[in-house]
């Protein structure tokens, strides 16, 4: 699956996207954040407060307990400042 990062999350990770292949035990968005943090010190720091990070699956905003099975694109980003 493809992961997208936006704003300061993208900057701190020094990448806007990456392809990952998490194991089957990674079931929810929360699980995915924990797995991404465990495999990368930059992600460990950038995502240290998961509660302030928002997520979208296939361009729909989701809560962190949403299953990721079947997802093609998962995006992570800080609170939005549009308008």
């Amino acid at each position, binding site marked *: 699956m493809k992961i997208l990062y*936006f*704003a*300061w999350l993208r900057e701190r990770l020094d990448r806007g996207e990456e392809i990952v292949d998490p194991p089957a035990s990674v079931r929810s968005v929360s699980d995915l954040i924990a797995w991404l943090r465990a495999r990368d010190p930059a992600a460990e720091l950038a995502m240290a407060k998961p509660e302030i990070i928002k997520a*979208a699956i296939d*361009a729909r905003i989701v809560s962190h307990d949403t299953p990721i099975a079947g997802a093609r694109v998962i995006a992570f980003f*800080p609170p*939005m*400042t549009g*308008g």
Partner: protein
Amino acid sequence: MGVRIQEAAFDPGAELNAFSELSEGAGAVVTFTGLVRSDPGDPVSALMLECYPELALNQIGAIVAEARVRFGLLDETVIHRYGTLQPGEPIVQVMTLAPHREAAFAGAEFLMDYLKTDAPFWKKEATAQGKRWVEHRDADDKAKDRWR
């Protein structure tokens, strides 16, 4: 109904005129134009607007559909730019058409309150002290909550 996410500049007045073509039963048009703001005491030299376009179209499309039903709007358009903008440049424009002014005003305010918190754009300001991400404002969450 129209939602446009674009890097190119737009002309606020030309957009207003194109939007308010004769529509039977319409009596009120409200236009909100958001400009890149530079505080005289802490000037901004440029604003970088990052965007997730696919999510923006989904989010704004849903907000616009809700506004149309909730306020009985006859038409509405949202234009939102991304990329690098200069102070004074238009960032966003929301237009609502309704039979009467109350609905046109409420619809435009509702759309703007939701865009501030629910549209996937992130602002970064360039100032004399360097670049900084604009913080999400709690006041914007409160503004949105009044529509619940």
